[in-house]
Protein backbone atom coordinates (compact mmCIF):
# COMPACT_ATOMS: atom_id res chain seq x y z
CA UNK A 1 0.00 0.00 0.00
CA UNK A 2 0.93 3.64 -0.30
CA UNK A 3 3.12 5.01 2.45
CA UNK A 4 1.12 7.95 3.74
CA UNK A 5 3.73 8.80 6.36
CA UNK A 6 6.09 10.30 3.83
CA UNK A 7 7.61 13.25 5.62
CA UNK A 8 6.90 16.49 3.84
CA UNK A 9 8.47 19.63 5.22
CA UNK A 10 6.37 21.92 3.09
CA UNK A 11 3.08 20.29 3.60
CA UNK A 12 -0.52 21.12 2.92
CA UNK A 13 -0.96 21.58 6.66
CA UNK A 14 -0.55 17.98 7.76
CA UNK A 15 -2.54 18.54 10.92
CA UNK A 16 -5.33 20.37 9.15
CA UNK A 17 -8.33 18.66 7.61
CA UNK A 18 -7.91 18.31 3.85
CA UNK A 19 -10.77 17.91 1.41
CA UNK A 20 -10.40 16.82 -2.21
CA UNK A 21 -13.05 18.33 -4.51
CA UNK A 22 -13.49 16.68 -7.93
CA UNK A 23 -15.67 18.77 -10.21
CA UNK A 24 -15.16 19.46 -13.90
CA UNK A 25 -17.12 22.72 -14.01
CA UNK A 26 -14.53 25.28 -12.93
CA UNK A 27 -16.91 27.93 -11.60
CA UNK A 28 -18.82 25.39 -9.49
CA UNK A 29 -15.55 23.92 -8.23
CA UNK A 30 -14.37 27.41 -7.31
CA UNK A 31 -17.60 28.11 -5.43
CA UNK A 32 -17.32 24.89 -3.40
CA UNK A 33 -13.59 25.35 -2.75
CA UNK A 34 -14.06 28.97 -1.64
CA UNK A 35 -16.89 27.98 0.71
CA UNK A 36 -14.79 25.23 2.32
CA UNK A 37 -11.65 27.40 2.55
CA UNK A 38 -13.61 30.14 4.24
CA UNK A 39 -14.29 27.55 6.97
CA UNK A 40 -10.56 27.15 7.44
CA UNK A 41 -10.31 23.84 5.60
CA UNK A 42 -7.52 22.96 3.20
CA UNK A 43 -8.97 22.13 -0.21
CA UNK A 44 -7.33 20.35 -3.11
CA UNK A 45 -9.09 20.92 -6.42
CA UNK A 46 -9.31 18.29 -9.16
CA UNK A 47 -10.83 19.14 -12.52
CA UNK A 48 -11.52 15.53 -13.48
CA UNK A 49 -11.73 12.00 -12.12
CA UNK A 50 -8.26 11.35 -13.47
CA UNK A 51 -6.78 14.31 -11.62
CA UNK A 52 -8.54 13.27 -8.43
CA UNK A 53 -7.12 9.76 -8.74
CA UNK A 54 -3.62 11.20 -9.17
CA UNK A 55 -4.07 13.03 -5.88
CA UNK A 56 -5.44 9.94 -4.12
CA UNK A 57 -2.50 7.90 -5.38
CA UNK A 58 0.00 10.43 -4.03
CA UNK A 59 1.21 10.63 -0.45
CA UNK A 60 -1.01 13.61 0.34
CA UNK A 61 -3.15 13.26 3.44
CA UNK A 62 -6.83 13.48 2.42
CA UNK A 63 -9.71 12.97 4.83
CA UNK A 64 -12.68 13.51 2.54
CA UNK A 65 -13.57 13.41 -1.16
CA UNK A 66 -16.42 15.39 -2.69
CA UNK A 67 -17.07 14.28 -6.27
CA UNK A 68 -19.56 14.96 -9.00
CA UNK A 69 -20.73 11.77 -10.73
CA UNK A 70 -20.81 13.16 -14.23
CA UNK A 71 -17.39 14.30 -15.36
CA UNK A 72 -15.93 14.50 -18.85
CA UNK A 73 -12.85 12.41 -18.17
CA UNK A 74 -11.79 8.81 -18.46
CA UNK A 75 -12.89 8.27 -14.86
CA UNK A 76 -16.34 9.54 -13.99
CA UNK A 77 -17.36 10.11 -10.38
CA UNK A 78 -18.57 6.56 -9.80
CA UNK A 79 -15.38 5.00 -11.14
CA UNK A 80 -13.43 7.48 -9.01
CA UNK A 81 -15.49 6.53 -5.95
CA UNK A 82 -14.77 2.84 -6.56
CA UNK A 83 -11.05 3.55 -6.96
CA UNK A 84 -11.07 5.78 -3.87
CA UNK A 85 -12.58 2.98 -1.76
CA UNK A 86 -9.66 0.76 -2.80
CA UNK A 87 -6.89 3.36 -2.55
CA UNK A 88 -8.07 5.01 0.67
CA UNK A 89 -10.36 2.70 2.67
CA UNK A 90 -10.88 5.20 5.52
CA UNK A 91 -11.82 8.12 3.29
CA UNK A 92 -15.17 9.86 3.77
CA UNK A 93 -16.97 10.15 0.46
CA UNK A 94 -19.64 12.61 -0.67
CA UNK A 95 -21.12 12.06 -4.13
CA UNK A 96 -23.21 14.61 -6.03
CA UNK A 97 -25.28 14.40 -9.16
CA UNK A 98 -27.97 16.32 -10.97
CA UNK A 99 -29.90 13.03 -11.10
CA UNK A 100 -31.23 10.77 -8.37
CA UNK A 101 -28.72 8.50 -6.67
CA UNK A 102 -28.48 5.03 -8.19
CA UNK A 103 -27.86 1.92 -6.09
CA UNK A 104 -24.12 1.94 -6.61
CA UNK A 105 -23.74 5.61 -5.67
CA UNK A 106 -25.81 5.02 -2.54
CA UNK A 107 -23.71 2.02 -1.56
CA UNK A 108 -20.38 3.69 -2.20
CA UNK A 109 -21.03 7.12 -0.73
CA UNK A 110 -21.27 8.25 2.89
CA UNK A 111 -23.60 11.01 1.69
CA UNK A 112 -25.31 11.96 -1.55
CA UNK A 113 -26.16 15.50 -2.71
CA UNK A 114 -28.37 16.51 -5.60
CA UNK A 115 -27.07 19.29 -7.86
CA UNK A 116 -27.33 22.21 -7.93
CA UNK A 117 -25.49 22.13 -4.64
CA UNK A 118 -27.13 23.38 -1.49
CA UNK A 119 -23.80 24.93 -0.54
CA UNK A 120 -24.35 25.56 3.16
CA UNK A 121 -25.73 22.03 3.65
CA UNK A 122 -22.72 20.61 1.83
CA UNK A 123 -20.30 22.59 3.97
CA UNK A 124 -22.04 21.50 7.16
CA UNK A 125 -21.93 17.84 6.08
CA UNK A 126 -18.24 18.10 5.23
CA UNK A 127 -17.50 19.61 8.64
CA UNK A 128 -19.48 16.94 10.49
CA UNK A 129 -17.74 14.13 8.60
CA UNK A 130 -14.34 15.64 9.34
CA UNK A 131 -15.21 15.86 13.00
CA UNK A 132 -16.18 12.17 12.95
CA UNK A 133 -12.95 11.29 11.13
CA UNK A 134 -10.88 13.18 13.71
CA UNK A 135 -12.60 11.41 16.57
CA UNK A 136 -12.10 8.12 14.77
CA UNK A 137 -8.35 8.77 14.66
CA UNK A 138 -8.13 9.46 10.90
Amino acid at each position, binding site marked *: *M*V*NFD*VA*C*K*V*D*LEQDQATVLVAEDE*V*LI*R*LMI*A*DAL*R*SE*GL*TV*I*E*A*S*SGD*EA*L*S*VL*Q*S*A*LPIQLLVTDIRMASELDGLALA*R*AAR*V*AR*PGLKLIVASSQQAGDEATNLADAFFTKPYALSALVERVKSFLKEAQHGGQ
Partner: protein
Amino acid sequence: MVDNDAELAELAGTVLVVEDEVLIRLVIAQYLRDCGYRVIEAAHADEALLVLRKSEIEIDVVFTDVEMPGSMDGFALSQWVRSNRPGTDVILAGSVGRAVQAASDLCDQQNNVPKPYDPQNVHDRIRRLLASRRPAKRDLQSALERASLGGPVQ
Protein backbone atom coordinates in the same frame (compact mmCIF):
# COMPACT_ATOMS: atom_id res chain seq x y z
CA MET B 1 -3.49 31.86 7.64
CA VAL B 2 -5.68 34.90 7.16
CA ASP B 3 -9.32 34.38 8.01
CA ASN B 4 -11.03 36.88 5.81
CA ASP B 5 -10.68 35.95 2.15
CA ALA B 6 -12.10 39.19 0.78
CA GLU B 7 -9.79 41.28 2.92
CA LEU B 8 -6.91 39.10 1.85
CA ALA B 9 -7.66 39.45 -1.85
CA GLU B 10 -7.86 43.22 -1.50
CA LEU B 11 -4.55 43.24 0.30
CA ALA B 12 -2.60 40.90 -1.90
CA GLY B 13 -4.44 40.36 -5.15
CA THR B 14 -5.81 37.38 -6.97
CA VAL B 15 -3.74 34.97 -9.03
CA LEU B 16 -5.25 32.60 -11.58
CA VAL B 17 -2.99 29.54 -11.76
CA VAL B 18 -3.35 27.58 -15.00
CA GLU B 19 -1.52 24.24 -14.93
CA ASP B 20 -2.62 20.86 -16.26
CA GLU B 21 -0.57 18.70 -13.86
CA VAL B 22 -2.63 18.62 -10.68
CA LEU B 23 0.26 17.71 -8.36
CA ILE B 24 2.24 20.74 -9.55
CA ARG B 25 -0.77 23.04 -9.56
CA LEU B 26 -1.84 22.28 -6.02
CA VAL B 27 1.61 22.92 -4.55
CA ILE B 28 2.13 26.20 -6.43
CA ALA B 29 -1.42 27.31 -5.55
CA GLN B 30 -0.93 26.50 -1.86
CA TYR B 31 2.40 28.33 -1.79
CA LEU B 32 0.82 31.46 -3.26
CA ARG B 33 -2.08 31.19 -0.78
CA ASP B 34 0.42 30.92 2.05
CA CYS B 35 2.01 34.12 0.72
CA GLY B 36 -1.32 35.87 1.08
CA TYR B 37 -2.78 35.70 -2.41
CA ARG B 38 -6.25 34.58 -3.26
CA VAL B 39 -5.73 31.81 -5.83
CA ILE B 40 -8.12 30.49 -8.45
CA GLU B 41 -7.11 27.22 -10.09
CA ALA B 42 -7.68 26.21 -13.71
CA ALA B 43 -6.57 22.91 -15.21
CA HIS B 44 -6.22 24.26 -18.75
CA ALA B 45 -6.80 27.37 -20.86
CA ASP B 46 -10.46 26.57 -21.51
CA GLU B 47 -11.17 26.60 -17.78
CA ALA B 48 -9.12 29.77 -17.42
CA LEU B 49 -11.20 31.48 -20.11
CA LEU B 50 -14.43 30.57 -18.31
CA VAL B 51 -13.07 32.40 -15.27
CA LEU B 52 -11.53 35.32 -17.20
CA ARG B 53 -14.74 35.97 -19.14
CA LYS B 54 -16.50 36.67 -15.85
CA SER B 55 -15.72 40.36 -15.53
CA GLU B 56 -16.94 40.36 -11.93
CA ILE B 57 -14.09 38.03 -10.94
CA GLU B 58 -11.07 40.24 -10.42
CA ILE B 59 -7.79 38.71 -11.53
CA ASP B 60 -4.51 40.56 -11.04
CA VAL B 61 -2.13 37.95 -12.39
CA VAL B 62 -2.54 34.97 -14.73
CA PHE B 63 0.18 32.45 -13.91
CA THR B 64 0.22 29.86 -16.67
CA ASP B 65 2.07 26.82 -17.90
CA VAL B 66 3.15 27.00 -21.53
CA GLU B 67 2.25 23.56 -22.87
CA MET B 68 -1.29 22.47 -22.08
CA PRO B 69 -3.93 20.30 -23.70
CA GLY B 70 -7.09 21.99 -24.97
CA SER B 71 -7.85 24.70 -27.46
CA MET B 72 -5.04 27.05 -26.36
CA ASP B 73 -1.52 26.80 -25.02
CA GLY B 74 -0.01 29.31 -22.61
CA PHE B 75 1.13 31.66 -25.36
CA ALA B 76 -2.34 31.87 -26.91
CA LEU B 77 -3.90 32.34 -23.48
CA SER B 78 -1.41 35.12 -22.79
CA GLN B 79 -2.39 36.88 -26.04
CA TRP B 80 -6.08 36.52 -25.15
CA VAL B 81 -5.48 38.10 -21.75
CA ARG B 82 -3.53 41.01 -23.24
CA SER B 83 -6.36 41.71 -25.70
CA ASN B 84 -9.32 41.17 -23.39
CA ARG B 85 -8.04 41.86 -19.88
CA PRO B 86 -5.44 44.56 -20.52
CA GLY B 87 -4.79 45.38 -16.86
CA THR B 88 -3.93 41.79 -15.96
CA ASP B 89 -0.32 40.66 -15.75
CA VAL B 90 0.68 37.34 -17.29
CA ILE B 91 3.46 35.08 -16.06
CA LEU B 92 4.45 32.24 -18.39
CA ALA B 93 6.31 29.39 -16.69
CA GLY B 94 7.45 26.60 -18.93
CA SER B 95 9.01 24.27 -16.36
CA VAL B 96 8.60 23.35 -12.70
CA GLY B 97 11.78 25.24 -11.83
CA ARG B 98 10.61 28.42 -13.54
CA ALA B 99 7.13 28.10 -12.02
CA VAL B 100 8.60 27.84 -8.51
CA GLN B 101 10.91 30.80 -9.17
CA ALA B 102 8.01 32.89 -10.53
CA ALA B 103 5.84 31.99 -7.51
CA SER B 104 8.71 32.94 -5.22
CA ASP B 105 9.08 36.29 -7.03
CA LEU B 106 5.35 36.93 -6.56
CA CYS B 107 5.74 36.16 -2.85
CA ASP B 108 8.58 38.68 -2.69
CA GLN B 109 6.18 41.37 -3.88
CA GLN B 110 4.08 40.95 -0.75
CA ASN B 111 4.83 43.49 1.93
CA ASN B 112 2.53 42.22 4.62
CA VAL B 113 3.05 38.48 4.57
CA PRO B 114 6.56 37.06 4.75
CA LYS B 115 7.53 34.24 2.44
CA PRO B 116 6.24 31.15 4.28
CA TYR B 117 9.01 28.77 3.25
CA ASP B 118 11.98 28.48 0.97
CA PRO B 119 11.17 27.98 -2.74
CA GLN B 120 13.59 25.06 -2.81
CA ASN B 121 11.19 23.27 -0.44
CA VAL B 122 8.37 23.91 -2.90
CA HIS B 123 10.42 22.37 -5.68
CA ASP B 124 11.38 19.38 -3.51
CA ARG B 125 7.78 18.85 -2.52
CA ILE B 126 6.60 18.74 -6.14
CA ARG B 127 9.35 16.24 -6.95
CA ARG B 128 8.41 14.06 -3.97
CA LEU B 129 4.72 14.14 -4.84
CA LEU B 130 5.34 13.20 -8.46
CA ALA B 131 7.60 10.36 -7.32
CA SER B 132 5.17 9.11 -4.66
CA ARG B 133 2.47 8.59 -7.27
CA ARG B 134 4.32 6.04 -9.37
CA PRO B 135 4.50 3.02 -7.06
CA ALA B 136 1.02 3.87 -5.77
CA LYS B 137 -0.36 3.49 -9.28
CA ARG B 138 0.92 -0.06 -9.48
CA ASP B 139 -0.52 -0.86 -6.04
CA LEU B 140 -3.89 0.49 -7.01
CA GLN B 141 -3.94 -1.34 -10.31
CA SER B 142 -3.25 -4.69 -8.64
CA ALA B 143 -5.75 -3.95 -5.85
CA LEU B 144 -8.44 -3.16 -8.42
CA GLU B 145 -7.63 -6.38 -10.26
CA ARG B 146 -7.93 -8.39 -7.04
CA ALA B 147 -11.18 -6.61 -6.22
CA SER B 148 -12.62 -7.47 -9.62
CA LEU B 149 -11.66 -11.11 -9.08
CA GLY B 150 -13.40 -11.14 -5.72
CA GLY B 151 -10.19 -11.37 -3.74
CA PRO B 152 -9.15 -9.34 -0.73
CA VAL B 153 -8.63 -5.67 -1.43
CA GLN B 154 -5.95 -4.93 1.15
